[in-house]
């Protein structure tokens, strides 16, 4: 009953004319950045972040979250029509989606992707609505010792699920934590590694770092091969799916949703991993696995549902624990902090308008996205006809405006350039960037909770293991370390044997 009352209150927030407009701008911009390679949800959020400074916190988070889940919808369009994933989570959709388009069945693929995304997105919001308050109640009891163990666990999980090997992920996490120590010491006010520049007192800016590492590095990757693309443009008539398509997609959507919901909680690359797992599951249980890759609708429906199902649950760690699960939600956290709102167990209690307003807006936003993505697909796809020679400077200018808007400092533009090159080089040599950026976000809190815990216990380390929460977190940490060490050792042995052979 409480949930329904709270959701009604949230609907009042989300359905106010201004918030409806912001939600629409968010999902529209999200769809566009999902379609355009080189921006993605992270860049898309960063670009509109300065615009939210004058808004209320609820309006800001409604718009920025709209970009986040809107980008998940947009990414599938380019995967199906062009074989170009707009963002990482849509890579799998290329496999069968584009084959369907080449056989003249782009319409059903787009419709199934949009409807699957809608169903999964809506169920994901329900999961967020049901789980977040329960988890928040439990998490109110955690102190600094438990918080430190929890962050340690999050970082280790990150290293475990990362796309790069553990020996490449671990230095990325540590580099992120090292970068997080730049700026004023939160306890004593001592300036660390600022080189006397007061602009670094708050640390290296997260926005220029994120835009550089993800946005600019993506542009640099695309500049390696500038090619024009052949656009398949579906007509409205082509969009009507057959009854068989819908029937064949129903169970893959259900399975994909379940996989996405579970993986949404995992820090790191949940939305990418869930799509690959969903595709693998569909292929495994299909009566015709050999036809996967030739245009099976299940290969589109499952991964697209999985991708969108992660959006709601990936917000749970952010809103309830204050721990962002993926880089895009780290930027949502920055937006909340700018508005003086601390994400964590007390968010639901202290700012119900923000939490329930966001949930209600996600229901509304998902409906907007279905309406936007089907009839207007031809219009969006036209954007991809723009040559990259024009698109690249446009994306860079938008990025610069977004970055400069946060602190009004040209030093941030230099940071964008520097992190762009760093991101490009790291990506070229197979280093995953997500652990780096998430460690930067979590570094401050990790240090703060560690020092607070030691101060409370007067230097006794038992504070990190005394509560049952801590024991669970630390047991998980030990299990992950053992699993990782075993996996590394086995991988090492196999590689040594291959080299010897």
């Amino acid at each position: 009953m409480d949930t329904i009352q709270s959701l009604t209150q949230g609907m009042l927030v989300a359905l106010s004319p201004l918030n409806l407009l912001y939600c629409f701008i968010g999902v529209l911009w999200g769809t566009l950045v999902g379609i355009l390679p080189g921006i993605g949800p992270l860049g898309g959020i960063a670009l509109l972040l300065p615009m939210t400074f004058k808004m209320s916190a609820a309006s800001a988070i409604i718009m920025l979250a709209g970009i986040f889940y809107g980008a998940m919808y947009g990414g599938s369009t380019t995967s199906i029509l062009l074989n170009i994933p707009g963002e990482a989570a849509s890579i799998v959709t290329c496999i069968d989606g584009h084959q369907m388009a080449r056989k003249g069945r782009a319409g059903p693929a787009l419709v199934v992707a949009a409807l699957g995304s809608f169903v999964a997105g809506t169920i994901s919001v329900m999961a967020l609505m049901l789980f977040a308050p329960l988890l928040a109640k439990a998490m109110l009891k955690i102190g600094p010792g438990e918080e430190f163990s929890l962050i340690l666990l999050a970082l280790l999980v990150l290293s475990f699920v990362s796309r790069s090997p553990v020996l490449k992920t671990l230095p990325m996490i540590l580099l992120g934590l090292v970068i997080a120590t730049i700026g004023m010491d939160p306890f004593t006010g001592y300036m660390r590694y600022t080189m006397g520049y007061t602009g670094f007192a708050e640390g290296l800016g997260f926005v220029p770092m994120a835009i550089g590492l993800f946005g600019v590095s993506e542009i640099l990757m695309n500049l390696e091969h500038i090619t024009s693309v052949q656009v398949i443009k579906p007509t409205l008539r082509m969009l009507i799916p057959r009854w068989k398509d819908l029937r064949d997609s129903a169970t893959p959507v259900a399975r994909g949703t379940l996989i996405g919901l579970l993986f949404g909680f995992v820090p790191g690359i949940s939305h990418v991993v869930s799509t690959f797992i969903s595709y693998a599951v569909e292929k495994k249980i299909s009566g015709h696995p050999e036809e996967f890759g030739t245009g099976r609708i299940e290969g589109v429906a499952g991964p697209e549902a999985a991708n969108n199902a992660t959006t709601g649950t990936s917000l749970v760690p952010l809103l309830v624990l204050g721990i962002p699960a993926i880089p895009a939600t780290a930027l949502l956290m920055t937006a909340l902090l700018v508005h003086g709102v601390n994400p964590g167990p007390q968010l639901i209690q202290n700012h119900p308008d923000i939490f329930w307003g966001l949930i209600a807006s996600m229901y509304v936003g998902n409906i907007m996205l279905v309406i936007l993505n089907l009839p207007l697909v031809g219009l969006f796809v036209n954007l991809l006809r723009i040559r990259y020679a024009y698109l690249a400077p446009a994306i860079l200018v938008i990025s610069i405006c977004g970055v400069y808007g946060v602190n009004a400092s040209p030093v941030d533009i230099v940071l964008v350039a520097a992190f762009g090159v760093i991101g490009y080089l790291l990506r070229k040599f197979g280093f995953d960037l997500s652990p780096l950026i998430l460690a930067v976000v979590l570094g401050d809190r990790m240090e703060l909770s560690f020092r607070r815990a030691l101060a409370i216990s007067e230097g006794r380390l038992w504070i990190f293991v005394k509560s049952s929460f801590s024991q669970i977190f630390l047991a998980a940490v030990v299990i992950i370390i053992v699993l990782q060490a075993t996996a590394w050792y086995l991988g090492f042995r196999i590689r040594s044997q291959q080299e010897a052979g």
Partner: protein
Amino acid sequence: MIAPTQRTGDMVIAGALFCIGLIWVVGTVDMPRGEFSIPGPGFFPVVLGLALCGASLALGGSILMFRAAKRVSIGNTYIWSTPIALIALAILFERLGFVPSIALFIGFFLRLLSDLKWVTCVVAAVAAAIGAYLFFSYLLGVSLPSTRWL
């Protein structure tokens, strides 16, 4: 374009990470370390610096155990021009104002990446810069460096 082997690239990155770790450790020399019960501002950075040195040594060691693998091609004129153009823009941004500096930036890229004529590049760059200024400054309320006219 340069094309080092994967192993060379990994080694260079491991070396750079080791240097960063070392700089972090050395940087704590003047910082109060505090006691274990009340760690000072130098405590966490020294631990992290040492851990980063250790992790990069482990990475370097693991790379050395295997033969050099595939070659990775890095960069071309377009790629290296982008960060240089961004740094130039950072220098000119507040000195010239948004419209002239962004017009130069866009014009440079159009000339570099497209086959448009000089005149077309200049006209398109100025129009795009004015459009971007009006959109971001007036519509989105982003604070951007202005000139006498815009």
